C-alpha cells in the first residue's frame, strides 16, 4: 500500500505543474510547426522534443546530471556547438554570388539595423517600465534580428544564458516565418517598377578567388574586430575546407555527419531551456514581440538600402534582394525570388539574392562581435 502511494507520488500526474502542462502544449506546437508546416524542421523538431523532455516532472533530464543539462554545459556554455554549426554552415555555403557582386555586402550590412533597433527597443521598454532588461539582455534579444540561429545561440549563451530558450525559439520560429513576415513589408516599400528591375548575369568566380575569400575575411576580422573572430573564423574554416579542394573528405564529413550530430544535440540542449520555470516569464513575451519587430526592421532596412544604392549607382539593383540581407539562408533569398517572379515572371532573382543572403550571415556575426566586445 505504502509502495503504491510512493508510485503515485512519483508519477507525473501527481507532480506536474500547470506551467509544465502549458510548456508541453507549446512544445507540441513547435513540433507541429516543424513536422506539419515544415518550418525549420531540423531545429524545431529537436528543440521541441528537448522541450518536452525538459518539462517531465520528477526526473533529472534538463537539470542536474540529466543528459540534456550535461549537453547544455558541454556544448552551449562553452560555445562549442554554435561554433561547430557555423563551421558546417561555412562548408555548406557557396560564397560565389557574393564574390561576383561584392556590392551586395552593403545590403547585408543594412539589414543588421534590425539588431540594433531592437536592442534600443528593449532598452526603451525598460526605461518605460514595461519590461526589465539589462543592456546585455537587450543585446542578446537584438541578435534575433540577425536571423541566424547559431549566432543567436552563441551570443545568448555568452550574454544572457537564462534567456537562451526564448531567444532560440524566437530566432528559429521567425526564420521559419520569413515567407509570411517579409512579403508585405517588401511590397509596401517598393513600387511595381522597382520590383521588375532585371539584374545583369553574375560573372564566373575563379577557384582561386573562392579559396582566398575565407582567408581575406578572417584576416580582416583579425585586424578590425577580433571579438567576431570565433564565429567568423569557424565560418571561414568550413568554407576553406569546402573550396580548397584538397580536403574533400573533411568537408564532406563537416557537411553531413558532423553538422547533423551537433544539430541533434544543439536542439536538445536548447530545448533544455524550455522548462516552465525558465520559459514562462514575462520577458519571454517581450522577447517574442521584439524578435518579430527585429525581423521587420531588418527586412525594411535591407530594401531601403537597395533603393539608396540605386540612387547612387547606374547599375541598378532590384530592391527585393535587399530583404534577403537579414540572412535566414536560404529562405529569405527564395522569398525575394518569389516576390520578384510575381512582378515579372521572367526575372530569376535567386542567385542575385544569395549574395546579400550570405552577406547577412557575415553581417550578423560582425554585429555579434560588436556586442560581445562592449558587453564582456
Amino acid at each position, binding site marked *: 500500500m505504502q509502495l503504491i502511494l510512493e508510485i503515485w507520488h512519483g508519477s507525473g500526474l501527481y507532480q506536474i505543474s500547470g506551467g509544465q502542462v502549458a510548456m508541453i502544449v507549446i512544445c507540441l506546437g513547435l513540433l507541429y510547426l516543424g513536422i506539419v508546416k515544415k518550418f525549420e524542421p531540423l531545429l524545431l523538431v529537436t528543440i521541441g522534443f528537448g522541450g518536452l523532455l525538459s518539462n517531465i516532472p520528477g526526473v533529472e533530464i534538463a537539470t542536474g546530471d540529466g543528459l540534456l543539462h550535461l549537453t547544455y554545459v558541454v556544448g552551449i556554455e562553452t560555445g562549442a556547438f554554435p561554433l561547430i554549426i557555423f563551421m558546417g554552415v561555412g562548408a555548406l555555403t557557396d560564397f560565389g554570388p557574393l*564574390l561576383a557582386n*561584392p*556590392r551586395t*555586402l*552593403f545590403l*547585408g*550590412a543594412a539589414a*543588421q*539595423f534590425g*539588431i*540594433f*533597433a531592437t*536592442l*534600443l527597443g*528593449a*532598452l*526603451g521598454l*525598460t*526605461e518605460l517600465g514595461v519590461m526589465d532588461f539589462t*543592456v546585455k539582455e*537587450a*543585446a542578446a534579444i537584438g541578435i534575433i534580428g540577425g536571423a541566424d540561429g547559431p549566432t543567436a545561440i552563441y551570443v545568448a549563451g555568452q550574454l544572457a544564458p537564462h534567456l537562451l530558450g526564448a531567444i532560440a525559439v524566437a530566432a528559429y520560429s521567425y526564420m521559419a516565418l520569413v515567407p509570411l513576415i517579409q512579403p508585405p513589408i517588401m511590397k509596401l516599400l517598393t513600387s511595381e517598377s522597382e520590383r521588375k528591375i532585371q539584374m545583369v548575369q553574375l560573372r564566373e568566380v*575563379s*577557384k*582561386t*578567388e573562392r*579559396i*582566398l*575569400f575565407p582567408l*581575406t*575575411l578572417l584576416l*580582416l*576580422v583579425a585586424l*578590425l*574586430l577580433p571579438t567576431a573572430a570565433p564565429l567568423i573564423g569557424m565560418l571561414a574554416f568550413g568554407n576553406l575546407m569546402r573550396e580548397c*579542394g*584538397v580536403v*574533400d573528405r573533411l568537408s564532406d564529413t563537416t557537411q553531413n555527419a558532423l553538422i547533423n550530430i551537433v544539430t541533434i544535440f544543439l536542439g536538445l540542449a536548447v530545448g533544455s531551456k524550455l522548462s516552465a520555470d525558465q520559459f514562462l516569464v514575462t520577458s519571454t513575451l517581450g522577447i517574442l514581440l521584439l524578435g518579430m519587430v527585429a525581423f521587420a526592421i531588418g527586412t525594411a532596412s535591407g530594401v531601403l538600402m537597395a533603393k539608396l544604392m540605386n540612387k547612387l549607382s547606374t547599375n541598378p539593383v532590384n530592391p527585393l534582394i535587399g530583404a534577403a540581407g537579414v540572412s535566414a539562408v536560404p529562405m529569405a533569398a527564395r522569398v525575394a525570388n518569389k516576390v520578384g517572379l510575381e512582378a515579372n515572371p521572367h526575372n530569376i532573382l535567386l542567385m542575385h539574392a544569395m549574395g546579400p543572403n550570405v*552577406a547577412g550571415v*557575415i*553581417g550578423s556575426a*560582425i*554585429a555579434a562581435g*560588436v*556586442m560581445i566586445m*562592449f558587453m564582456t
Partner: protein
Amino acid sequence: MEQSLLNQGVTLMLVGMGTVFVFLTALVVAMSLMAVIVRRMRPDTAVVDISDEEIAAIGAAIRRHRCK
C-alpha cells in the same frame, strides 16, 4: 555620470551599425582588390591540375579500400 539606458542604446546602435558598415566596406574593398590581383595572375590553370590529381588519389583510395 551614469548614462541612461536609452542613451547607451543609441550610442551602441550608432557605433554598432558604424562598425558593421566599416567592416563590410573594408571587405568590399579587399574582395575587389583580390579579384583584380587574381585575374592579373591567372593561376587558375594550375588549380585545375590539382583537382585532377585529387580525383585520381580518391579513386586510388576507393580501389584500395574495395580490394582489401
